[in-house]
């Protein structure tokens, strides 16, 4: 099963490799990982998408907690949360496809952020499912290059983690 975990860590030298090393060393999957500082510049927030059964997920949580640099773990399994991912998609745009690309981007509330005579770059944000969908629709036009940020998530409702 797919699980999303946020990990708040000390924004210290080498912390990313501690976390990624933990996953590879113990044979846990990482589907995606994104990381950036929080409001408090001494703390970074990682969003990790992983998969595994309950026993593995429990181990992942405990092992992450065991790292000295880990301040807090938020496991979104079974929680209500907002999940967003951004993608930049460079797609071949010729006379026949330009209008279609614009139309698709529009449906997904995407934007064309770079234009050349032969290609458009589309920026889109949404749930990973939505990002998958637009990629599928653009694929027939010829995707030259694509980058996805990996999802970031936040729990729904008024509750927040103070420094985060």
């Amino acid at each position, binding site marked *: 099963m797919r699980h999303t975990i946020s990990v708040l*860590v*000390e924004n210290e*030298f*080498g912390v990313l*490799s*501690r976390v990624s*090393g933990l996953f590879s*060393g113990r044979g846990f999957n990482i589907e995606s990982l994104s990381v950036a500082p929080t409001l408090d510049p001494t703390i970074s927030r990682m969003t990790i998408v992983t998969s595994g059964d309950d*026993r593995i997920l*429990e*181990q992942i949580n*405990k*092992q992450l*907690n*065991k*790292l*000295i*640099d*880990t*301040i807090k773990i938020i496991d979104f399994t079974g929680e209500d949360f907002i999940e967003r991912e951004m993608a930049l998609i460079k797609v071949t745009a010729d006379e026949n496809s330009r209008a279609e690309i614009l139309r698709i981007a529009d449906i997904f509330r995407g934007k064309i952020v770079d234009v050349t005579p032969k290609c458009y770059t589309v920026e889109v944000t949404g749930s990973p499912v939505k990002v998958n969908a637009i990629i599928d629709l653009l694929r027939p036009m010829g995707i030259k290059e694509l980058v996805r940020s990996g999802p970031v998530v936040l729990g729904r409702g008024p509750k927040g983690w103070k420094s985060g």
Partner: protein
Amino acid sequence: MKLTGSKILLECLLQEGVDTIFGYPGGTVINIYDDLMDSPVKHILTRHEQAAVHAADGYARATGKVGVAIATSGPGATNTITGIATAYMDSIPMVVITGQVPTPLIGNDAFQEADVIGLTRPITKHNYLVRDIKDLAVTMKKAFYIARTGRPGPVVVDLPKDVQIATAKFEYPETVELRGYKPTYSGNMRMVEKAAKMILSAKKPVLYVGGGASLTDAHGELLELAEMIQAPVTTTLMGMASFPTQHDLSLGMLGMHGTYYANMAVTNSDLLIALGARFDDRVTGKIATFAPHAKIIHVDIDPTSIKKNVRVDLPIVGDLRNVLKKLNNKIAEHKDEIESMHSALKPWHDEISGWRKDQPMTYKSSKVEIKPQFVIEKLRELSNDDAIVTTEVGQHQMWAAQFFNFTQPRTFLSSGGLGTMGYGLPAALGAQAAFPKRQVIDISGDGSFQMNSQELATLVQYRLPVKIVILNNNFLGMVRQWQQLFFDKRYSQTCMELPIDFVKLAEAYGATGLRATKPDEVEDVVRQAFETPGPVIMEFKISREENVMPMVPAGAGINEMLLRTA
């Protein structure tokens, strides 16, 4: 007044109460070694950095204090790796200081540069690269704090040469605050109460004790619990010596080379009380048939150990000694139930006695060949009660665990988790440095001994009178045993073709060498060794193809023991 980084480092060691460190000099620690000449901290020069770390480990296991080792950058640091991994697997508190190339050169493939932080990340509890002299004192404080608290473990502090030369005002912080690190010590009272209830209603309880007992010095509380509820006690290799081997309630060791009766008791128990143990595969055998009828209570300070390998009915996270104190108090409130429990346990004790009588821990003695078990028995008979025994890894290690008696805590030092050949001699060195007056015995095989035999020089130089026992079978015995049992006796690369004269080797270093080739010489050699001052090698030419029995074959359940070699 401002101090250099190297002086600050040594001041930090004094503040932490460190009296002895083990190490080896080199270019990136030369400043530290220069200042060491004026410091009250005693330094022991081993002949290899791996040995320095094992010595610090032995020192830590024997004393309970944090062991300290130091090595230069590059090859010095990479030589420490096996020592650090050994300590990590057995949760030994240790701080290892490595020199590093100057900060401007880091990442340039400078001479003797190695990414020590990267190399040691998976085998340390934590590690630090100190890039600014201002951070040095506080980093040392954190390193010691992390090493000794919670589930203990090794911490590496990598110290670039320019930071050792830079100066700063020395201030040692009194406390440290790590917002991400708050080990749970106390043990949830509700869980403890539940545990007490489960224990008092058990019909077939077994206490299964691991290294946590010695790490928390919980032997007193353990004895109290076992006697109060009259429950049998089995220990892992790491739990050895936390419960007196000769006690009526002792079942000895469990697992692959444990006693038949310990494994049968665990298999048939209705309540397994795991105390500071982690259900290692050498202990459990096939998980599916491990303690199939038992409810499991698991006390451990490390939440990751709980439910990692086996299902657990009642987890208690906390310091073992703390939890046992609470648990003992709680159980003691129920005087009547304790009494009725004692009578209810009678059939259980009878059943265990049956297994004990059926398959005692024994061996076939010989008048012609020296049996290794016989040597261990003689050592046990003739050594002091508070003797510290270290081992290497192999058959001799298992025979030591099976046939030596331990009465006092922290007297059995062995590499349980990593299984490191070459551990025992330097660990004995470290233990002897901590306790110059006690008997320290390294029980070794001819293979393992040669992995760190250069430390004979250190023993002689520092007058550390370690007694080394070599059970010489001219084989890498434990591997040969597997080849005999599971590979049709195809002894691939396990015969040590070149016989070594260990007596001469001892003499070459200025130590004493003694040899026994017949059973009736064993006692004399042991006596003479114990009476001889200074380090001694006792070489015993043992029956070459003796096997460690009983044995759980790989993949089998612990109730499916091979009792003797066919």
